[in-house]
């Protein structure tokens, strides 16, 4: 056993004596540090934006509260606004839905640049509105990727491993002293194994330290962190295991390097590229015409409905409206009905969004079904899921937005139909429904 421990320990000397390996390793560490710095910057930028948004929201809400306190009905230059009416009170109280960045975001920004992380909600909002577009960004930078920690681990780390290991048993074969090694060790399998083990140890320790450093800085020690560590270590094995067999069976360092690079290309570029092409072939880009129809044509059709039609539609959506003040009245109040018709539009939007999400899910299911031969995409999406930056995290955010819109509209409809008068106390109770955090 001491022999193998010695092989393992001596490998540090081999590593130290190779300038290429040491420089590559150091460059990788620097890149990791830079990526974490970028990740923290992005997190900070998101948090700052969120702070500004919250300040903004607080200011506009306190303006409305001042009106109540001063007995005013709204802004002085807009006489038609009356915040004692639930319609104007709710319509004027635009609030934000925010997706807080995960504390682990510096470790993987995933798809977060593809989506918006806040939305201003009104009675006409929908989670697919254009104001929830992603942050302003340079698309060409986006396709080249960020110096993102997960990118470094998933795509560059295997290349670092290639540089570190391609001449194990390759140099010996190139210089034809592999037989001498075999004689000394009594077979090369374990010798290769322990040499590889050193680099596996080196790399996993480095990565784990990096992950822990983020955990320390952001004070996050939870199960997700453990999952991330496990995932990264497992990912390293995905490459190290085939590397072992390549090293064992190849004729020299050139052949080893060729095979390792081919494996990298296959796993990181070709297979995901093929799966991507296939998924897009089956489910091409969605121009969202269902949603566009709901959002525009059908919405405008709703505008043309008579008050009776609107009334019927609203009662279909909210059967409990029957017990409200206006529903009990025999004549339909035109203003109340028109003020609450955004709930009908919301219903149309929700139906269309359901179809879109369903289509997206079909595509996602297809992607998931490729995981068994497409491990890199699996690790990538798992990683992003842990850092809450994958499609599902944003899909959940959209669902949260939709729920909040539904709540807002339900409040609007019932309060308007019940002919309520809004005072400060009532308004504060509205805010509990309207605002994300109370």
């Amino acid at each position, binding site marked *: 056993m001491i022999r193998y421990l010695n092989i393992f320990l001596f490998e540090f000397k081999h590593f130290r004596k190779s300038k290429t390996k040491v420089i590559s390793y150091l460059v990788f560490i620097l890149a990791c540090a830079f990526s974490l710095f970028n990740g923290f910057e992005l997190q900070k930028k998101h948090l700052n934006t969120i702070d500004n948004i919250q300040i903004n929201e607080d200011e506009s809400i306190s303006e409305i509260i001042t009106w109540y306190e001063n007995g005013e009905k709204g802004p002085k230059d807009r006489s038609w606004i009356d915040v004692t009416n639930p319609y104007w009170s709710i319509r004027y109280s635009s609030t934000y839905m925010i997706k807080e960045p995960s504390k682990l975001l510096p470790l993987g920004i995933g798809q977060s640049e*593809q989506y918006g992380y806040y939305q201003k909600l009104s009675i006409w909002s929908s989670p697919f509105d254009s104001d929830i577009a992603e942050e302003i960004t340079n698309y060409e930078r986006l396709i080249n990727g960020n110096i993102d920690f997960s990118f470094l681990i998933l795509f560059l780390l295997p290349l670092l491993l290639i540089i570190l290991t391609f001449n194990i048993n390759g140099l010996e074969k190139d210089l034809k002293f592999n037989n001498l090694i075999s004689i000394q060790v009594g077979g090369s399998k374990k010798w290769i194994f322990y040499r590889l083990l050193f680099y596996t140890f080196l790399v996993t320790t480095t990565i784990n330290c990096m992950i822990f450093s983020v955990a320390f800085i952001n004070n996050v020690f939870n199960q997700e962190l453990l999952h991330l560590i496990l995932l990264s270590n497992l990912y390293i094995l995905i490459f190290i295991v085939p590397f072992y067999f390549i090293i064992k069976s190849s004729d020299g360092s050139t052949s080893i390097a060729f095979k390792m690079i081919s494996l990298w290309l296959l796993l990181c570029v070709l297979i995901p590229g093929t799966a991507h092409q296939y998924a897009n072939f089956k489910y091409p880009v969605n121009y969202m015409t269902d949603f566009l129809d709901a959002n525009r044509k059908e919405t405008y059709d709703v505008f043309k409905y008579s008050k009776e039609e609107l009334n019927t539609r609203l009662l279909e959506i909210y059967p409990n409206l029957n017990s409200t003040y206006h529903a009990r009245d025999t004549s339909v109040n035109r203003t109340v009905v028109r003020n609450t018709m955004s709930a009908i539009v919301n219903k149309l939007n929700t139906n269309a969004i359901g179809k879109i999400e369903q289509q997206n899910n079909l595509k996602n299911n297809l992607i998931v079904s490729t995981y068994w031969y497409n491990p890199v995409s699996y690790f990538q999406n798992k990683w992003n899921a842990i850092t809450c930056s994958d499609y599902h995290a944003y899909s959940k955010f959209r669902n949260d937005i939709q729920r909040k819109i539904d709540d807002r509209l339900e409040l609007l409809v019932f309060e308007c139909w019940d002919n309520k008068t809004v005072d400060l106390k009532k308004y504060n109770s509205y805010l509990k429904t309207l605002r994300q955090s109370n």
Partner: protein
Amino acid sequence: MKEIIINEWVGYFINKLFVFLGVFFIFFLSLVTFLGIIQNDKIQNEQKLAHEHIRAQWDGMEASNPHSAAHYGTYAFKPISVLNSIDEGISSVTGNVLRLEGHRQNDIVFSEASQSLIISKFGKLNPSLIFQFIIPLLLIFFSFNTYISERQTGRLKLMLVQGASLRKIIFSKVLSIWFIGLLLLLLTLFIQIIFNSDNINSDVIIRLSVLFLSYAFYYFILINITILLSVIFKSSTAALSLTVLTWVFWTIFFPTIMGNTTEKLSPLPTRIEFKEAMSEDRSKGIDGHNPRGERRDALEKATLERYNVDKLEDLPINFSGIVMQEDEEYGNMVWDKHFGNLYIQLEKQKNNYQLSGFINPFAALQNLSMGSAGSDMYHHLDFLNKSESYRRVFIKTLNDEYAFGGSKTGERGWKASNEFFRSVKDFNYELPTFLSFYTKYLIDIIILLFWVFFTSILVYFFTRKITV
């Protein structure tokens, strides 16, 4: 020289691995190119259907108020270029749908990348993926040992004694490997032309030529560098590891680093900052729906004077339409200022990235590849600009109809006929010709030529002093 090249090729053809790889790549590229064309047609068709669907809704619009129609608006669907199947560039990350309506300029939304989980970081399996990632590696593996094996087996000395110059030998080797890359490039272009014959026009031919030359130059540079390193280091392992390392830096590392750096050099505003700045400027204009405000009063006064009447009701036109258009014009001015600045920043980033080609020719290749395929940022910005130009004409047509189409001030219920709506020009985006854009790519072309020249000089220099 010709004899050496022919001899090299004979050598390739008796090498089983080479023949296998050659056949594999020819088959693989043909398949990928062909499937890419089908995929492109499919997306183009989807885009056309979406466009027709939306236009049909517009054409079927009942008699309505033109300003309501401006709010109703329309949609611009970003089309993909014919050569998108070769290099899809940024197509998958940009939005595809842009709502064009009155009072506001929207963001382009619904990118393909936002519609699913991530599948591939380096893009779909299309010819550009093979040209940029796989063929260069193949060429590296063909070239790293070509000189060293000649040297180690003593054939090099033999050839020199026979009277061939070292430079000739080296350049012959460079050219013979380069021809392999050219062959694969030509094959792809050939398939593209055959299966896309309906869409081939002079612009597509120019774009394909630029694409071909860009990759051809890049391959030449890469082979030159590989052979140069093998000449300098005299060890196949050192040559291979250094070239692969160079490839990794060029292809994976530098583009990401440079992307981040250019973004830091010319930072972009956050969306909320941008919107706030815009809405602040916008609030200084006329609110089309708010009957108050100094600017509005001034406009009212000027209009009354122009028509020589005292009251709005006496105007032969609908003043509301004038106000709406004035509001639009102001909004356009604000848009021009803010989006103009944003686009300037984006172009600065792009220019800086282009300059990084001097240390990384892959950047120049990438720009030219996307540019010639019509899928880069310049083309995207062109689409956004033309959409906005269309939006302006579209809204102005509607506002003018509102103002001058026969209604008078205060007639809110006035409606324009269906014929009028049908007569409003549709938005048909045409991809700009490459020649109208070529100046934007001059720097990339210069960079690739510089690298061709620079690496050739290095090979020339090092083969002068070489000791065999």
